[in-house]
Structure formats: structure tokens, C-alpha cells
């Protein structure tokens, strides 16, 4: 009988062994995910700094003699964001589960492992270190590091400090990895394009392994408001979070604890809630038994008296910016129509969220997208490119809405863009590619699309009316001259001028309808 060996594994080790759940399942997907994670970190860093992002991305192929489909690539990304303070650099880029994202506010990444996973993946496929150069405005720190996978910590190979006379601020990162660019090229470029769509204030530059330059220029300098950090809402809390709060708290009793650590909880609410949970208001937080903890968390689900979660931690793109971004990236012109809607905040399971939707149609849309409905999905300003038909947005657009109501036929060209922002996007997987159909989220997404679609219906109606009027004008323009010509021949006079009549028809459409009504009435009167 052999002895079973037990050993703990570090988070880095865990993800090394289970990299597919983080989106590094194969070389092409890994290329995509690495770019995505690093780009999102850069964008977050820039927005935190309140500067319009300028991100430079370059992927270069490294010459090698292997005759395989996969290649080695050097991936470089530079941003003008906050920069990372010297002491945080090794942890931020070479430690799994380290980051600035364990507070409650909307951010692109949630798990705090994205950037490091890219580094980790690069390291395990090429055994090359990562280079991180960063400055928060002072000295420039240049680190060359590897991850000590077993111990989940950085092992620093080089650390140079340089002067920064120009006051540069930002981060540059370079790593090497095995990948497969040719297979993911289309998605990657589409990802950048859609990123530009929902981040219209960002300048993105990308040089691909074939030396081609892609520039996604910003359409505005305006940034959406920065999300505020807020305390958690009691509805969204789980036992582990509760336990950690208790471990950290400096409050002396449970009433104070509830008021101090949760949003929207005042003395009355705290009292009523603790009463429901069966916990004394005077109990010392640190003395709570594990059973009490579970009871308290369970009670958060049952208690209905909490205020709606505070949405100031959210940062919707806003109707104006979203419209700018979509118009810019889809090259919409005067001949296209777009309607953008930002809904009021709503909540699911205690997490606040806001849905934004845009619906566009028109000549350019038809040319570039063809007939039918094209859906663009975004979550916290990140494009979602995979598993479209599994997600809640696809379901809302294709199952919940009767498009005929909006004058949209099967051959209409329509673009729908939906952005959901939340402190916790209800992703179905760590790969973060599609959202689960939480009923509240589904309802809001559906309503947002409907609201935007109503604009499209008005647009179609107006266009139909204009087309009808121009047909009408054509008919008058065709027949009136003939009437004038032959009435003149009949009367043996000069041809009368019909311009005044045509002017009336073209400028005064309601007038026509009124007159027409008169004519019908005369016919009806005569029949009486």
C-alpha cells in the first residue's frame, strides 16, 4: 500500500496546472488572452490616472528553426497610465492573486491574475524572464524577473533605476511566449477594434508580427467618470468575505460592524438585520462563531430592508461616448442611424449593474455587415468575442425581442452593441467570454435593446415617410408638366408655370394630407 502524499500548491502552481480555465488553453487562444489581459491592465491604469490612454502593442516573431505551427513571439505593451510603484512591481507582475482590484469598484479585470498569467504562460513556454519598466513620475524602474512558481513569488534577475528627466509616467512590459498568431489574427484585430469602440478616448497602436501597423485613433479626449470605491452591499457578500471583514475590523460590536463595513446600513437597518439573523447587536465581532457567520450571511439573503446597492462604483461609458466609439469604429456616416441608451442602475444578487445598448442601422451598416443582426458584446468595457450564442445578450436580442414590432425585417442590417458594467459581471467562466442569464440582467439587457430599438423604429418610420413623400413628389413632378403642356395645347395658350404647385407639394407635406382629406370628404358628401 503506497502512501498518499499530500502537499499544498501555490496559486501560481495551481494556475500553471490548470491554465485552460484562465483562457490559455492552446497557443492561439493564449496569444489572444495574453494581449487581452495586458491591454486591460494598461487601460485600467490609464483611467485611474485620468489621462486618455495611449497604448502601444507590438508582437514580433522570434526567429527559430523549429518547423512547427506554433512560434515564439515577443510581446511588448506600453501605456501612459499611473505606473506601478517600485515596491509593488515584483508582486504585481510576478505573483498570482496580487493586484489592486480587491476593492469593490468596477474594473476590467476581476481576478487579479490576468497580467501575471500572461507572464506565467510566457515563462513556462519559453523559460524567458519578463521585463517591466515603470514609473509613477519619479525614477524609472526596470525589472527583469521570473516567477518562482512553487512559492508564488518573484525572483528578480535585474533591477535598474534610471533618471526620468522628462517625467514619463506609465508602464512598459515585454515578455516572450509561445503562440500561434495566424490562427488568432482575425479575432485579435477584432478585439482591438471593439476595444476602441467602447474606449473612444483611447489611442491604440498595434504592430503585428507581419509588420503591419494598426492604429485606432481616439474620437474624443473625454473620459467617463471614474468609478468610486464603495463598501460592499450586504446582499452580495459571501461567508469568506464576511470572515475577512471580521478579521480586519476594529469595531467593537456587531451593530457598529454592520454600519461600518457595509453600504446603506444605518442603526435601524443594522438592528433589524441582526435581529433577523439572531445575533446580538452587542456581540463582539471577533467572538462570532462559524455558525453565527453562516447565519449572518444567510440572513443577508433573507433580509429585504437593505437599500438598493450604490451605483456610484460603476462607470458606464455614457450615451455620448458610446455613440462616438461606435460611429468611429464602424465608420458610420450621416446616412446611418444610431440610438444609444444608458439604463438606470439595477442590481442582481446584491451587485449593482448598468446596461447600455446601442442599435445602429443604415447604408454603411448594410455595406459592412450585410443583412441581419450583428451583436457586439461588452462587459466592463471589454469586448466579448467568444461563445456569443451562449450569452445573455444573444438571448435577449434573438429570443426576447420581436423585431417585427420595430419594423426590423429579416433582411434589415442592424448592429446591436450592449455594454454591461458591474462590480461583478456574472461571467460563466474564468475565461470571461460570456455572461450568465441572471434574470435581472437579462431583463435589463432586453429593456435596453428595446429602448434603443424604439429609436430605430422611429427612424424607419421617418425614412418610410420620406421615401413615400419623395415618391409622391416624383409622381407630381412627372404628371404636372404633362397636364400643363396639354391643357395649354387644348386652350391654345402658353404653357402655364407649375413650379408654384411643385413647391407646395415638396415643402408642405401636412398641407397635402389636409387637402387630400378635403377631396375625399367632397366625394363622400356628394354621395349623401
Amino acid at each position, binding site marked *: 500500500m503506497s502512501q498518499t502524499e499530500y502537499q499544498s500548491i501555490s496559486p501560481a502552481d495551481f494556475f500553471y496546472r490548470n491554465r485552460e480555465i484562465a483562457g490559455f488553453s492552446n497557443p492561439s487562444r493564449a496569444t489572444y488572452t495574453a494581449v487581452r489581459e495586458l491591454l486591460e491592465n494598461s487601460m485600467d491604469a490609464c483611467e485611474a490616472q485620468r489621462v486618455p490612454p495611449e497604448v502601444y502593442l507590438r508582437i514580433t516573431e522570434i526567429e527559430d528553426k523549429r518547423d512547427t505551427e506554433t512560434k515564439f513571439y515577443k510581446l511588448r505593451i506600453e501605456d501612459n497610465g499611473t505606473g506601478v510603484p517600485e515596491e509593488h512591481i515584483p508582486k504585481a507582475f510576478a505573483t498570482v492573486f496580487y493586484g489592486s482590484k480587491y476593492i469593490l469598484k468596477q474594473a476590467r479585470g476581476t481576478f487579479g491574475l490576468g497580467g501575471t498569467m500572461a507572464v506565467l504562460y510566457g515563462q513556462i513556454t519559453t523559460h524567458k524572464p519578463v521585463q517591466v519598466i515603470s514609473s509613477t513620475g519619479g525614477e524609472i524602474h526596470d525589472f527583469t524577473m521570473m516567477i518562482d512558481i512553487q512559492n508564488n513569488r518573484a525572483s528578480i534577475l535585474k533591477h535598474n533605476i534610471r533618471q526620468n528627466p522628462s517625467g514619463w509616467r506609465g508602464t512598459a512590459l515585454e515578455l516572450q511566449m509561445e503562440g500561434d498568431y495566424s490562427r488568432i489574427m482575425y479575432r485579435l484585430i477584432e478585439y482591438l477594434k471593439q476595444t476602441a469602440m467602447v474606449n473612444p478616448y483611447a489611442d491604440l497602436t498595434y504592430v503585428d508580427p507581419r509588420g503591419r501597423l494598426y492604429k485606432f485613433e481616439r474620437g474624443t479626449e473625454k473620459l467617463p467618470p471614474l468609478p468610486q470605491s464603495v463598501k460592499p452591499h450586504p446582499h452580495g457578500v459571501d461567508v469568506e468575505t464576511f470572515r475577512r471583514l471580521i478579521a480586519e475590523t476594529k469595531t467593537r460590536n456587531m451593530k457598529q460592524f454592520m454600519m461600518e463595513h457595509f453600504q446603506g446600513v444605518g442603526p435601524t437597518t443594522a438592528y433589524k438585520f441582526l435581529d433577523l439573523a439572531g445575533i446580538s447587536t452587542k456581540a463582539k465581532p471577533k467572538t462570532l462563531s462559524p455558525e453565527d457567520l453562516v447565519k449572518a450571511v444567510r440572513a443577508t439573503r433573507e433580509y429585504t430592508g437593505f437599500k438598493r446597492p450604490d451605483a456610484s462604483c460603476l462607470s458606464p461609458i455614457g450615451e455620448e461616448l458610446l455613440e462616438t466609439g461606435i460611429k468611429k469604429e464602424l465608420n458610420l456616416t450621416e446616412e446611418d442611424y444610431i440610438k444609444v441608451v444608458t439604463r438606470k442602475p439595477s442590481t442582481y444578487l446584491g451587485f449593482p449593474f448598468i446596461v447600455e445598448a446601442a442599435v445602429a442601422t443604415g447604408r454603411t451598416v448594410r455595406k459592412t455587415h450585410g443583412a441581419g443582426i450583428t451583436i457586439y458584446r461588452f462587459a466592463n468595457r471589454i469586448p466579448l468575442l467568444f461563445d456569443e450564442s451562449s450569452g445573455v445578450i444573444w438571448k435577449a436580442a434573438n429570443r426576447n425581442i420581436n423585431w417585427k414590432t420595430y419594423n426590423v425585417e429579416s433582411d434589415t442590417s442592424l448592429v446591436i452593441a450592449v455594454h454591461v458594467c458591474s462590480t461583478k459581471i456574472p461571467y460563466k467562466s474564468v475565461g470571461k467570454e460570456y455572461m450568465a442569464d441572471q434574470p435581472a440582467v437579462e431583463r435589463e439587457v432586453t429593456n435596453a435593446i428595446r429602448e434603443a430599438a424604439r429609436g430605430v423604429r422611429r427612424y424607419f418610420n421617418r425614412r418610410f415617410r420620406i421615401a413615400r413623400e419623395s415618391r*409622391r413628389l416624383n*409622381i*407630381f413632378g*412627372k*404628371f*404636372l408638366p*404633362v*397636364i*400643363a403642356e*396639354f*391643357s*395649354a*395645347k*387644348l*386652350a*391654345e*395658350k402658353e404653357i*402655364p*408655370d*407649375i413650379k*408654384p*404647385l411643385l413647391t*407646395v407639394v415638396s415643402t408642405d407635406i401636412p398641407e*397635402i394630407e389636409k*387637402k*387630400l382629406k378635403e*377631396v375625399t370628404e*367632397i*366625394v363622400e358628401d*356628394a*354621395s349623401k
Partner: protein
Amino acid sequence: MSKTRRSEAERRREAMEQSLTGLGNLIHEQITNHEFPWIHMQSRSTDNIMYDPEERQYVLGPRMIRRHSRNIRHIRPFTQLVWTAWFAKELVKHRKTSTLREVYYSARGHRDIEYNNQQESDNIITDMEVALNRARENFHIFPEERSAIFGDLTIEYTVPGYEGRRTNLTDHPDGVMIGPAVTSSEFVETSADKVLVVEKGAMFTRLVEERAHDKFNAILIHTAGQSPRATRGIINRLNHDYDLPVYIFTDGDPWGIHIAMVIISGSANAAHLRGLTTPDAEWIGVWGTDIIDYKLPTEPLTEFDHKRLHELKNDPRYTGDIWQRELDVFLELEQKAELEAFSRYGLTYIVDEYLPAKLGS
């Protein structure tokens, strides 16, 4: 007499030309006043067509419609009407005639008139008849169908190139076709004392051969089926202007009966026109009772005949006793007979025996 007659025809032509010019003036003036041109006319929809027992024909009711060029559905027919009026004026002015079909094809030559079929063109011509209260023959537009006339009637042509020329309608043994020239001619003199109208060319030829015109002192007319308006107009003139009684001789079936009735009381299609009916004309056969009296060879009524007979029975024009009686006889017998049925007694029987009996009665 003929001189005043000729100038009478000329006067009518000039009046027509003026009437068309008047239409042009009206529309021209409306446009000059920055008004969308429109015209007023009686409605020709079926609910505005009614039988007038006084006039003994169908007439249009009081309902008026506007054809208004401001109305998107009206402007095309309005344009067609103006164009057709111009075309008619050209005909009248230059003393030319045309046919419904020619008008249709002439319109096709003008790209904005846009007729889809001749029916549309014919309809517009009827609209013009209603709007101007004149029959299309007055616009010098004639239908295609041609019937014929034979007998001692001297006419004087008014058509260009023939003005003042006279002819006697016995001059041609096949009869003279009733076309624009005959229609527009003046009747100078006749020795006949009656008009005999038959439905079919073959019977017409038989009557001419058997010298029925001499025997009965009659002017013979064949209608070639349902009689064209020009023919009905001539029958009306002979009856009205010369006091000649008119006798109509058709097949003994619902279709023959109705040929007679349209000559007598007119059709719903021409409800807007006067001078085309001859209310005093008499239908003399073939009656249902003739089938019995003369033991005529017959054919059974078809289902279609049946339906038609019942329709006629409920038609306001058929209220007279003789009509109702004969319709009932046909229905009872379940049989019908053609004019040619008399041939069983020999080719001359109809002239020698039947007609004398009928006309004598």
C-alpha cells in the same frame, strides 16, 4: 335643305371643338391661379347608375365626383384625360376619325401617359364623355365593331373629301358598313316606312337577297351581335327624326333578347349618354311562343342561359308584360331557337311567311 344640314354638322363639330378648348381653358386657368387642376363629373360607379322609367333607359344618379390632380391616385388618370382631350381636339379640328384602339396606341407613344391596357384608355374616353356630356363619336372616336345598313336611304357625307357627296344605301348589295362616315352623314331622303334590325350578318344577307327591303319597304340593319353605339345612334335617328317604326329580330335566347333590349332601353355602360336608345322599337322575335307556334327546331337551355334568363326577369328594363311572358316561356320550354331555325321550312320562309305575319301583327 342639305345645305342647312351640312352646316348643322359643321356647327356640331365646332361646338365640340369649343367644348374641348373650354376644358383646356379651365385647367389652364386653375394652374395659372396656382391651384391644382380638377374637374367635376358625375360618378360612374354602379351605385350611381339607376334605371329611369320616365326616360326608359339607365341614367346616372346625382352623385358627383372630383377628379383632382392633387390626389396622388387621381393625377395619373387626370393626366390621361387631359391628353385624351387634346388628342380628341386634334381629331375634331382636323376632321379626322380614330378608333378606341388607335387612341390607346397613340397614348402609348407618349411616355408619361402610361396605359397598362386598352381598357384603361377606353375608360378615360368614357370619363371624357361624362365630363363633357358628349358621346365619343362626337370626339371622332369610334369602336372597332362594324355593323351594316342597307335600304333606300340617301345620305350625304360630311367627312373630309366627301363633303356633299351623296349615296343611296342600296348601292352596295353587301350593305354599307356603319363607320364614321355613315355615322356623321346627313340623311337626305328615304322611301322606307320601317326599320328592320337583325342580329346576324347571315340573316341580313338573306334578307337582302330575298329583297326584304322592297317587300317590307324597310331599311335593313345588322348589328353584328350587341349593337355598337353608332348603330344605336342611327336607329334612334331613323326612329326619332323620320318617325320610322323599328322592329328587331334576334335569336330566341336570353342573349338575343338582350340585344333587342339594349337597342330599346340602352345599357348601364352608356347611362351618361342620351340619344342612343329607341324606346318605341319593338322586339318581334324569335319569341318563345314562336318556338311552339312554328314548331321550330331547338336546343336545350344551358345552365348559363338559365342564369341569364333569371337575371333578365329581375332587370328593371324587363318589367313589360311581353318580356316577362316570353322569358317565362323560355324557362318553361327549357329550349331556345336561333334565327336560322326557320330554314327547316326553306330558305325563303322567313321572308315569305314569318316576317309578314310578325310585321302585320
